[in-house]
């Protein structure tokens, strides 16, 4: 981590470790959609180089949904999904204690994949609500709690 504030356009998170994930994604998409899948993987790769990985992974999921048929069973999408997750987790290697970060990320990913697979038959809308609550609501709630603690501690110092 650095102490400098980020300025300007977001930079890409391309790293050699992430390149392996891109390869897995390409293999998965080729298996699912052939040359079209490969093109989709190339697009994700280009984004991965130009912008932070999180946006590339988001776009990757959209492309994954686009190049596959609506009725494709979720387990069949797992290899491509693994590649996308690999791209994302590889960006945590710059953090101190990165093994813990990776383990936490893998754990969250496993929960997310399993939860969606379990809830999807009941309806995508319900699944969306649950996933949003867990994977967006919880981080935001933690952020608010963190700020509250900082204010309390800052007031005690003053």
């Amino acid at each position, binding site marked *: *981590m650095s102490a400098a504030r980020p300025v300007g356009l977001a930079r890409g998170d391309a790293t050699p470790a992430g390149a392996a994930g891109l390869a897995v994604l390409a293999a998965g998409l080729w298996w699912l959609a052939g040359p079209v899948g490969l093109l989709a993987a190339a697009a994700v790769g280009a984004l991965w180089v130009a912008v*932070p990985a*999180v946006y590339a992974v988001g776009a990757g999921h959209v492309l994954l*949904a686009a190049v596959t048929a609506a009725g494709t069973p979720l387990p069949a999408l797992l290899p491509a999904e693994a590649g996308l997750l690999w791209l994302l987790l590889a960006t945590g290697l710059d953090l101190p204690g990165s093994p813990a970060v990776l383990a936490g990320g893998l754990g*969250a990913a496993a929960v997310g*994949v399993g939860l969606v697979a379990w809830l999807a038959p009941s309806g995508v809308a319900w699944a969306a609500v649950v996933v949003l609550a867990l994977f*967006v609501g919880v*981080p935001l709630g933690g952020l608010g709690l963190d700020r509250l603690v900082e204010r309390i501690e800052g007031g005690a110092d003053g």
Partner: protein
Amino acid sequence: MQVTERYWAAVGTAVALAGLAVLADRAVLLWGTAAVGGWLLARQVAVRRSAAATADALTTTLLPDRVRVRADAPVAVTLVARLDEPAGHPVAVEAPAPVGATGDDGATATIAPGEREASATYECAFPFSGRHALPRPTVEVTDAGGWFRTTEAAGVTAEVVVDPRRPRAVHVGRGGDAVAATYGDHRAGRSGAGTVPAEVRRYVPGDDVRHIDWAATARLDEVYVREYEAETDRTTAIVVDAGPHMAVGPPGETKLDFAAHVALTLLEVAADHRDPVGLYTVGGDGELRWDRPAATRAQYAAVRDRLRALETGGRRAGTDQVRRRRGAGQRAALLADGSPFAPALRPLLGPPRERRARFRDDPLVETARVPLRELGGTVWTAIVADDTDRAAVADAVRAARRGNDRVTAFLLPDVLFEPGGLADVEAAYEAYRDFETFRRGLDRMEGVTALEVGPADRIEAVLGARRRGVSGT
């Protein structure tokens, strides 16, 4: 912890994927939501832990080059940041300048990757006297992706004590002659075994030749003798006129600046002897302010702080002891001689008397009376005032005398402080002579010592020009 715009963009991405999943009825897009959200959470936890670890491993120190300075004097503050072990990333520590200080805004010390220490210095000045705390340094940590930013306080604060600007050359004496005397040991009105030197003065016929101070005689080319007095415990009451007329003079060298300087010196001498000290100040609108004398460190510090903050103008009267009461019986009790409220209330509620009326009208005289009303034992009253209202000063000196008590008047001649007052040296000399006549009149009073206080260069200018004029004729 603060988040950046990129964080919100990522949250927006996750929410957009969820919306798209619902619209397109494709559950695979929810994997994207879970992946982005989970990644943000994992990174948030990791950054928080890393920032806390960095702050724990960091030692910061603020080192002002001086911990005690005069107002507006520059102070260089050095920030030193030190890590227990070198970090793999730069660590920036910021030390902001204190609020109200002029000069630099602060300094930032950045420890480069692989290094353990860095330092930076900023310069500032404090326009106001008092105790100024330097803000605690902070270390700001941002993760490489620019998603989170957290600021942790690091190190401890430091303090700079700022004294008000002081006069440069203070003359205390009689008729232009500096007084070679100590004002710490105090008279008991008697001599005897175990006595200590109290004052060095010119030899007059009849003095014991055994008391000649040969060091002072050799230094001053005149015969001086040293008086010895028995030690006593004595309360020191410092009365300072802080009215608007005391604000005359150049910045930092007004009459009030000189008065505060004299009073601070008297305080330090009394503190050295562990004498009880009380400060009595009177402002421009006649408001009195005083506290009960004590010989404690807290009292010395409180008086010191009040003298540093001395300003002209009105002040709250020391009326904490006064309470409103109703009824004639209570009124009589308040005005009775033994009542502690009588001095403050009699001018307002008591029957008018000729001398009292005059004192009532003059806050300086009333102030001089307050300590003697309240205190027992021997009291040494030091009155620090100018000669703007000579009658009031004389009355205040008379009011402060009592029995064995002594009074010392430190008088600031108005002629030495008026802007342009020395433009006409002849007129200035005549005005000074007039002041000197007044001072000698007070000095001749039983139990009273009257001294002049003023800028040494201006007294020399007045008297020196006169001497040159006389020698030239």
